[in-house]
């Protein structure tokens, strides 16, 4: 009888498909870090105004080493004032959306969760539309989107407390409801907005774009981003335990409600910060965590750092396409949807089980 279970696994390799081909976690994460660095350098080189590699490295290194200028002032301005804030922002937005998506997937035990699940995006869209309607400057639009995004999720949280029964389901359903409510609000603003200049501005913002990024915006959103990202990284073991479900997590010694609240606050903070500067960028936060699961597995100890790095890489690549593919910039939100949908199909139809 003992033989039933103690028998070593059949050496067919078929039974072990779940782990087959998995790269050791540390190696994969180091490789992702190197890739991110490479993509950052490539992003500096790509752009309408040509900056050759030699000049680029000269400009970058001149901040640390005394190098006499052999590049034009225009090149220097393009690197520091245009490309640097854009690269930082694109990288951070990718990191944040993917970290939030991965975190929500864990706390809701739901592989389909994405950063907009609790209404953060819908709230940001409403806040931005409101500010654009009022004719406020771009930094105020970002601030309004950020604040409204947080308020929306706070409201959602209050509403969800009234839902009877399963806490996770209550949160998700309340998120759907509040999202819909704020999307309706946004539609109403679009309806009454001046169709010659304000309506296009609102529509363009909602498409999701990193165009015209200023360093003021970067300085504003970087703090809430870091404030959310660091705890998400630190809580990654608890996220594993939460995926077992509330009862088991509690019996193991983890206060599921408290950890979930902490994760939701952090994930909301980073999502709100990201969408307040980028607008609606969909799919990224849903698919990158799944791509990373295929590489490093489901263990959040490896998955969370890998997802953050992968998110930065993915967003920078898509942003480079958005900047350089056509003569005029394509809003990145449109591209992520174009790229994301088929990628997701590929992920769910893969031979290896995803979830």
């Amino acid at each position, binding site marked *: 009888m003992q033989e039933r279970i103690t028998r070593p*696994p059949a050496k067919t390799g078929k039974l072990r498909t779940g782990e087959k081909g998995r790269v050791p976690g540390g190696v994969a994460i180091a490789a992702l870090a190197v890739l991110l660095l490479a993509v950052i350098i490539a992003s500096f080189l790509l752009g309408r105004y040509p900056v050759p590699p030699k000049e680029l490295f000269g400009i970058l290194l001149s901040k640390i080493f005394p190098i006499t200028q052999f590049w034009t002032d225009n090149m220097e301005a393009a690197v520091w004032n245009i490309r640097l804030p854009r690269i930082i922002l694109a990288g951070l937005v990718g990191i944040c959306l993917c970290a939030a998506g991965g975190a929500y997937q864990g706390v809701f035990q739901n592989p389909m969760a994405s950063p907009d699940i609790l209404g953060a995006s819908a709230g940001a869209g409403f806040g931005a539309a409101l500010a654009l309607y009022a004719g406020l400057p771009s930094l105020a639009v970002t601030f309004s989107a950020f604040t409204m995004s947080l308020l929306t999720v706070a409201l959602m949280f209050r509403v969800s407390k009234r839902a009877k029964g399963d806490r996770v389901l209550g949160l998700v359903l309340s998120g759907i409801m509040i999202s819909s409510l704020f999307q309706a609000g946004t539609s109403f603003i679009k309806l009454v907005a001046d169709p010659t200049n304000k309506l296009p501005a609102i529509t363009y913002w909602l498409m999701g774009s990193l165009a015209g990024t200023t360093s003021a915006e970067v300085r504003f959103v970087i703090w809430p981003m870091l404030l959310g990202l660091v705890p998400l990284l630190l809580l990654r073991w608890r996220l594993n335990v939460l995926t077992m479900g509330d*009862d*088991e997590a509690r019996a193991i010694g983890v206060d599921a409600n408290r950890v979930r609240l902490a994760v939701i606050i952090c994930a909301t903070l980073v999502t709100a910060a990201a969408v307040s500067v980028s607008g609606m960028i969909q799919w990224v936060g849903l698919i990158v965590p799944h791509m990373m699961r295929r590489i490093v597995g*489901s263990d959040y100890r490896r998955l969370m750092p890998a997802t953050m790095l992968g998110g930065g890489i993915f967003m920078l690549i898509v942003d480079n396409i958005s900047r350089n593919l056509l003569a005029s910039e394509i809003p990145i939100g449109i591209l992520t949807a174009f790229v994301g949908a088929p990628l997701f199909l590929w992920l769910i139809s893969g031979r290896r089980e995803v979830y």
Partner: protein
Amino acid sequence: MSVEVKNLSFAYGGHAVLRDVSFTADSGAFLSILGPNGVGKSTLFRCVLGLLRGYTGRIVIMGRDAETLSIREMARLVAYIPQHSSPAFNYSVLDIVLMGTTAGLSAFSSPRAEDVARAEQALEKIGVAHLRDRCFHRISGGERQLTLIARALAQQAPVLMLDEPTANLDFGNQVLVLAQARALAREGYTVIQTTHNPEQAFMFSDRVLALKDGRVLCQGPPKDILDEKLMRELYGVDVAVSSLFGDKVRVCTPGVIVR
């Protein structure tokens, strides 16, 4: 006494589920809570585990009132082995067992090398060390149940609570899991299981608590209480109970078959 439940009552809304339940469980003993489906076995478990509050009566675990215990303190005293566990994502068997060490970690930290060693020891002890790197989703039901027992051991709690551990298992795995549970009781653990199988309760456990409609019908050593009268009362059908192998085994046969 490691677990002492005194006059426990619990109601969902106005619907009383547990009424005045009292029992004790000792270290080194295997207690089976026996009863038909829906009598409040799970509710009783959830109360003892601290997952349900708002009961009346007292639950004392290792000398401490359960209501005063934090979630973490509770996890160090009582480990829970659910009927089935289905994490939303794929984890290795080792990762699942490693989760048992969480109560000993601070909120922001991940398991250390010594925790991994403890998880490996637990797998070794249950005899499933070869499953270490397998996917939890891809092992058999019996292997999963044993993995969850290993996780409970990694939790280093003196009380183990198994919720219908054999409900989804084939015959061989049922025997294996119950034998393991009994062996752990012999080592000094307090082992409590719920079951609706009277024959298994008789064969493996030291004490039986029979629940009916949220009340304790009777409790005591299985030899004293598991008879035709109790079976009839408990399950509402006529049952013939026959003793085999010098009363090491009692077989329950439906009355419609043999009478």
